[in-house]
């Protein structure tokens, strides 16, 4: 199963504002829960999310334990040129994951 889903329009007009949607699959363990033998489940949340549009950062978020499992993001940016959108996120276990989506910009 994919670690995330990312959605951008297939074609956007140059200069138009478009929506990016990102859904990350992650348990977002708060560090406050105990397992069934009474041991604390270590905190493991996605703490940083960045999205790059043709290499330039267009979105940056820092997350805290109040964010529920499988966080969902949506933001807007401006179509400047064809290429790709890459979202990268890192969790407390040190795992960095990324997902890409291609975008075509029409004149």
């Amino acid at each position: 199963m994919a670690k995330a889903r990312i959605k951008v329009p297939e074609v956007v007009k140059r200069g138009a504002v478009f929506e990016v949607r990102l859904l990350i699959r992650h348990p977002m363990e708060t560090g406050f829960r105990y397992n069934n033998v009474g041991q604390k489940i270590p905190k493991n949340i996605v703490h940083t999310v960045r999205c790059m549009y043709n290499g330039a950062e267009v979105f940056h978020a820092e997350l805290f334990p109040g964010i529920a499992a499988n966080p969902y993001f949506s933001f807007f940016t401006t179509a400047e040129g064809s290429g790709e959108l890459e979202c990268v996120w890192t969790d407390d276990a040190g795992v960095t994951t990324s997902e890409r989506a291609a975008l075509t910009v029409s004149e």
Partner: protein
Amino acid sequence: MPSYLTRRQFFSLAGSLPFARLLTGRARASTQARVVVVGGGFGGAACAKYLRLAGPSLDVTLVTPQRQFVTCPFSNAALVGLRPLASLTYTYQRLRECYGVQIVHAQAREIDPIAQRITLSDGSTLAYDKLVLSPGVELRWDVIEGYDAEASTVFPHAWQAGSQTLLLRRQLEAMEDGGLVVMSAPETPYRCPPGPYERASLIAHYLKTHKPKSKVLLLDAKDSFTKDRLFLAAWKRLYPNLLEWVPGAQGGRVTQVDTRTGIVRTEFDEYTPAVANIVAPQRAAAIARAGGLDAGMGWCSVHGGTFESRVHANIHIIGDAAIASPMPKSAFSANNQAKVCAAAIVALLRGEPVARPVLMNTCYSLVAPDYGISISAVYAVENDTIQVVPGSSGTSPLDASETTRALEAAYTRSWYANITADTFG
């Protein structure tokens, strides 16, 4: 007293003696008390009946717009032709004739909690000493873009049984083999937590039997649901290519529909199904939100032991409209709460202490006509709130035999026969 007298003979004898003079003032107050019950479903009908049983001298009026009530339980079976809708249809004749409940067919429009009276759709008013609200849910038209009352005539919700059930049934019957059925399930809380999953199962059963090249896609706003391990295991075995569940974490949340183009959209995908069944988010029906009874939450907060509103005195709210969590919004819960509420009202009117109730619920679901699963729990009231009695809850076993599943399907049918007999007389 001679032991061969029946209860009825005893009471008729008692009535002929000057016992009435022995009644206390408080008891007389209860004989004159007027109780109005709004809503004619599993909560309202059962409450009206049990009020008359517990307080035979009470003046009990049941207000419900419909002359016939079609039950949501077993409407998923009716949807796929396993039984006729007529077999799920009840009247209030026995409540009136056998239990002395007065029936008024009107919609309750307004409540005056200070003057203690309600206004009905025909303009008349009814005064009450105690008011019971059991109006159920209404669909919310402000959550899924494009989904409103008009859209529900194209993409039915079928979450209130009757014409909506028949509409969805006709659409399933008219669909060609190979068609896609899209269903949506909302975020909790909503009426009948396992309902969308039972429905998806029985639609899959219908497709398997009649249109095996078709598929049902269940788009869910949630990542888990009641009895999910049991449902998922059953689906894998019974409907491997016919039923697919898309949880919220995989983009299952339906955000928009367009009935003109026939499109259902989630945050990530777009579908053009042959049949769409949108089980939209819900809230307490309008009358239960009148006068701020829901405190802006969409559902009504109640005291655990009496089901009296935490907002207004002398108004009790039971069934789907009430926040009785951890009890689910089910017919079983509504019927059970109705009896607890009726007993509490009779005690309050008599100035007697209210007994601390024990409540219970079982939600049966059919995964196939001969494949039943269930979840049960017992509840007690602690510190004015309803809580699960530790160790009392459980589900059907994950690894049960076919015989067990068939037995549970038989229990499901028996439960339905019993609860409807108990509720409607």
